């Protein structure tokens, strides 16, 4: 018995991705439309170049198209999964572009300038950015890790801080962001 078609926009992200796994082009387009802007913005934030960011988003979504059936609902939302793929590809691109890891004995500023994501001067953007509301010590390690692609050990070395201090700052920063959200992850008014 045929099923009644459902408009794509009435399906949740997870169901859309299930359809993408069946190579449903319409579902894929709807899924892309939902996350296009967030995905591009994230890639652009990390890589700092429009054309490179577009290549990253294209590669990431093609990978989603070809591997949608591998999405596992139990491991998080479809959006988080998709944006995680975008982030990972952007970080991979960033690392492949870097000729080497930034000099570990250089000062903070030169380290921070070594990756575009951590070299933002747009004050308006920074005001909107949740990490800018954190104490600078915490925002710096989170910025370097999430948008710069550095490991906690690399951050420890480049900032000349004990590894435990870096871990502690990451935890405090994330807990502070988490504290501003309710159980569903929405911002508490």
């Amino acid at each position, binding site marked *: 018995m*045929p*099923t*009644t*078609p*459902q*408009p*794509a926009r009435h399906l949740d992200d997870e169901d859309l991705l299930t*359809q993408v796994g*069946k*190579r449903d*082009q*319409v*579902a*894929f*387009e709807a899924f892309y*439309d939902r996350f*296009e*802007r*967030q995905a*591009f*913005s*994230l890639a*652009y*934030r990390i890589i700092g170049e*429009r054309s490179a960011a*577009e290549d990253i*988003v*294209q590669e990431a979504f*093609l990978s989603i*198209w*070809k591997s949608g059936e591998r999405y596992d609902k139990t491991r*998080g939302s479809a959006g*988080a999964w998709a944006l995680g793929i975008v*982030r*990972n590809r952007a970080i991979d691109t960033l690392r492949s572009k870097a000729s080497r890891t930034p000099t570990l004995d250089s000062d903070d500023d030169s380290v921070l300038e070594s990756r575009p994501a951590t070299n933002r001067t747009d004050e308006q*953007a920074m005001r*909107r*950015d*949740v*990490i800018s509301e954190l104490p600078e010590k915490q925002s710096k390690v*989170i910025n370097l*890790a*999430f948008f710069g*692609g*550095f*490991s*906690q*050990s690399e951050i420890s070395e480049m900032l000349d801080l004990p590894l*435990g201090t870096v*871990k502690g700052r*990451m*935890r405090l*920063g*994330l*807990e502070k*962001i*988490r504290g*501003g*959200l309710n159980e569903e*992850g929405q911002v508490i008014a």
Partner: protein
Amino acid sequence: MSTQGHNSWKEQLPAYLLGALSPVEKIDLEYHLGGCAECQAELRWLAPAKHRLVEQVEQVEPSPELKTRLMAAVEADLAENPVEAVAEAPAIAIEPEPETAANRERQERRPAKKNWFDFGQLLRPAALGAVAAVLFAGVIIGYGVRGGGEGSQAPVVAQKVIPGDSNVGDADAVMVTSGNSGTLRITNLPKLEDGEVYQAWTQKGQEIVPTDSLFTPRRDGTATASIPDLSGVNTVMVSAEPAGGSEQPTTTPIITIPIPS
């Protein structure tokens, strides 16, 4: 496990969320997570903070060409690796993108009539070649590649492209068939009145049979719709119908595609 040992795993969770563990640290932690309900709960609680980081990134609009390139690549992939069979009616009907300021702006920036069917606009030569092959070869043989590369014994799937006739404006349609199923691809569809949808029909002999393919065109006038069963069908038609569809066409079909037996 000692409390001290357990705490050392918990300390790794923020870096894990931020993607700041080394590959070895990551694998070790994931192994631990598999058997530690407490760390799993901690990770679930902390995860929305990472999502918030993503949400708060300054929003930047990509160029419209990004979507064009992406969908062309998807079309090319479908042409190279066609869906072998559609066992049931489409789960999804086409609807236009939601009416948002961003979408309106994007549409306005798009050159007129440039869509996934405007193959001359495809930017990637490989995609152009693959999709053009579907359109112009009439019949192509796609080699299933799921089983491997050269020399594999993957099943051969025949795909036919059948041109259709239209009696409105510059609407155009083709039917791409694969086995007993097909996909309608239509361009330049007229806008519908409020409360209307397009409905696809199949004609078997003299009998006109409704399908579950109800759809509305995208803002650029394009639409696709699946016809899951073409067995015994000699014509596929499209007409404008009241929302929810009809049992028999209530308006003259605007698209007619003869299906060769």
